[in-house]
């Protein structure tokens, strides 16, 4: 029997002093067989030598992430600027000897390792991975995208190869949605082997795909390895393709180099997440599940198995959908997809006479606040604003002069605000919390919780036919409701925080899902009581701190006015150590009306209503809280 065993491969690796090891899961008696050479070069892929240098000074713009911005300044790709967020950060003028986006600047940036399973869809994974990572780098939010959306949107079968470039071409036209809208699937269990490759999913994404799709601009192809490393340093990961040999399949750790006599099995693509000049290798995320290699990641020597023969692909300018950002805003402020950086702030505030004014701030440049349209006639408080999967429309709910709730929505197609009508209790008496939820698996529901005049909280919800329903009342002795409603990342649970008559805050949660019940009753359970001396509505989000990956709930961040200052509270949703007060800041504050964790490197942005009835912006970066401009009257 002429075949190579894993044990023999291990011996050869040792004999050649090759800097890598076979996967520990494999026994020495497992077979590895030698084989000769491979196939022709794909005409679909650009050779590295045929790609011209990209002028990064022309391509790259000011980065919202202050740490990345400093890297671009270091190379002279963008002008030195004096935004407070970037002052004082290190600016090494040479390319670092290693970059690894799995952990950079103390943050994780790479989504979990996926498994393509028996389909030959490797090309879709790094393309999707580039979008996921760039969205996180550019907008400071975990973003999971569907490889199936790309493969099935293009219309390819399970067994059809393609290229990351083809995937990115398709995504430039169509964007890429989340797996809940259209998942990556493989042939069902029991499919005959000869039917696996021809199997093709019938592409039927969710009806609101447009509102849950990350858009991308153009992408760049880079051929020069030095420029690829600079790109990894100043922009983000790259998609790359190379030849797969049979010893690569059993790779475990170290820097992979093809062993003499190894057998070519085909062409493959991965996501390059970094490089290491000392070890002389690229660091990559594979799509063969977490049990392959080093937790699903690997290192491959520069130039090995033709990895540097073909152009690598990167992109920037991602535009993240509102469904992805849904937990990152509360109150009257959201970060929208508008503007050249796709990170404008949109804000609604009262404007006198019951009217509501739409304010906005450009996400780059001077970042001055500007007034947009006014609408409505019966608002008595700053509205609670969100953006939804319904074409990315803005939706707002406010307390009316008649003690009810009114819904307004901004149609992105016509650029106009529209009255969605009155709903809710007849004795509403607080700031409404308002979110879009997927309580039943799809985001076709609105959830509202508002204080009523009897000192209770009232949960209302809107079904997919746009009918509002009275959930039920819960809690007692409630002094204030506020925009604190969150549907957590890990569960369908709804959570909310209110202010009690004694000045303390209390959290409540609703995790009893009654699927199929016509009235969809909600059962709210009391949680922790914390704080003191509070006499205004709180504002809360679920942020990215504490979220180690795209499936993990981040910390709750809550801001509330106490006296004439703002208290910042947070709760660790992993350690479940309860609520902690981290800071007190501001002055002349009447109440907190908006809270966002936006694209600016995980900063928190707060809008307060001052005692003089004007709106003011505060923000927190890695150094602490800062006072922003007074925006205007409310």
């Amino acid at each position, binding site marked *: 029997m002429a075949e190579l065993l894993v044990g023999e491969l291990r011996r050869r690796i040792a004999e050649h002093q090759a800097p890598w090891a076979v996967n520990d899961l*494999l026994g020495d008696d497992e077979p590895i067989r030698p*084989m000769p050479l491979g196939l022709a*070069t794909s005409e679909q892929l650009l050779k590295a030598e045929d790609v011209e240098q990209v002028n990064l000074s022309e391509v790259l713009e000011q980065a919202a992430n202050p740490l990345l911005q400093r890297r671009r300044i270091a190379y002279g790709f963008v002008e030195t600027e004096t935004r407070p967020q970037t002052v004082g950060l290190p600016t090494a003028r040479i390319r670092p000897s290693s970059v690894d986006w799995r952990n950079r600047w103390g943050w994780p940036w790479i989504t979990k390792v996926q498994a393509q399973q028996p389909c030959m869809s490797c090309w879709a994974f790094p393309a999707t991975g580039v979008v996921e990572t760039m969205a996180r780098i550019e907008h400071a939010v975990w973003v999971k995208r569907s490889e199936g959306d790309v493969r099935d949107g293009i219309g390819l079968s399970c067994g059809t190869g393609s290229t990351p470039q083809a995937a990115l071409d398709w995504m430039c036209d169509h964007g890429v949605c989340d797996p809940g809208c259209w998942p990556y699937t493989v042939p069902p269990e029991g499919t005959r082997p000869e039917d696996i490759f021809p199997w093709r999913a019938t592409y039927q994404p969710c009806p609101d795909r447009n509102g849950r799709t990350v858009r991308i601009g153009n992408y760049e192809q880079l051929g020069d390895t030095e420029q690829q490393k600079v790109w990894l340093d100043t922009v983000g990961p790259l998609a790359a393709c190379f030849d797969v040999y049979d010893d690569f399949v059993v790779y475990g750790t170290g820097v992979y180099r093809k062993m003499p006599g190894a057998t070519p099995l085909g*062409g493959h693509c991965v996501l390059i997440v970094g490089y290491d000049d000392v070890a002389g290798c690229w660091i990559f995320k594979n799509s063969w599940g977490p049990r392959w290699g080093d937790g699903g990641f690997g290192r491959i020597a520069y130039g090995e198995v033709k990895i540097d023969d*073909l152009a690598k692909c990167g992109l920037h300018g991602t535009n993240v959908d509102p469904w992805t950002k849904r937990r990152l805003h509360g109150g009257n402020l959201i970060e929208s997809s508008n503007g050249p950086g796709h990170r404008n702030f949109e804000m609604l505030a009262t404007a006198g006479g019951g009217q509501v004014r739409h304010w906005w701030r450009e996400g780059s440049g001077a970042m001055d606040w500007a007034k947009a349209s006014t609408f409505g006639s019966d608002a008595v408080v700053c509205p609670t604003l969100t953006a939804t999967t319904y074409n990315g429309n803005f939706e707002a709910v406010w307390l009316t002069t008649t003690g009810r709730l009114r819904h307004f929505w901004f149609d992105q197609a016509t650029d106009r605000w529209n009255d969605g009508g009155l709903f809710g209790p007849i004795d509403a008496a607080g700031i409404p919390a308002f979110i879009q939820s997927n309580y039943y698996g799809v985001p076709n529901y609105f959830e509202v919780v508002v204080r009523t005049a009897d000192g209770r909280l009232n949960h209302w919800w809107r079904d997919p036919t746009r009918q509002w329903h009275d959930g039920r009342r819960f809690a007692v002795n409630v002094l204030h409701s506020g925009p604190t409603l969150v549907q957590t990342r890990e569960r369908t649970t709804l959570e909310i925080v209110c202010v009690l008559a004694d000045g303390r805050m209390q959290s409540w949660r609703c995790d009893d899902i009654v699927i199929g019940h016509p009235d969809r009753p909600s059962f709210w359970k009391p949680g922790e009581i914390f704080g003191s001396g509070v006499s205004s509505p709180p504002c809360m989000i679920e942020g990215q701190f504490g979220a180690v990956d795209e499936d993990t709930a981040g910390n709750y961040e809550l801001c509330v006015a106490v006296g004439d200052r703002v208290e910042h509270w947070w709760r660790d949703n992993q350690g479940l150590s309860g609520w902690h007060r981290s800071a007190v800041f501001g002055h002349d504050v009447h109440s907190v009306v908006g809270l966002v964790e936006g694209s600016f490197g995980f900063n928190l942005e707060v809008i307060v209503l001052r005692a003089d009835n004007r709106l003011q912006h505060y923000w927190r970066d890695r150094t602490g809280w800062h006072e922003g401009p007074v925006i205007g009257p409310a």
Partner: protein
Amino acid sequence: MEREQQRILLKPGESHTLRLPSRGPAGYDWILTLEGDESAVDVLRSAALSPGMSAPPLSPGQGIDQLFTVLAVSSGHVVIRFEQRLPFEPEEPPVDERVLDVTVEEG
């Protein structure tokens, strides 16, 4: 999922070639086990290269069919099982499986 056994009769010096599809770009490989007189045959493996094909790089997601040549060495009976699986997930069932029942007899 096990396929019907293919039975072949060879004389020493004769050979039989089996062509199997590759899922190498998905991390799968063909794992062979022999039961019986292992010394009765040698199994050689090669890539199914078309004439004129040059060196890699290969098209992403494109696998190379694998050729397994069973060379009869001496009299005996051996069953060769081919399982296509992820080598690093040995407890997972194979996605494809073939069985070759080989008898080598002197002429």
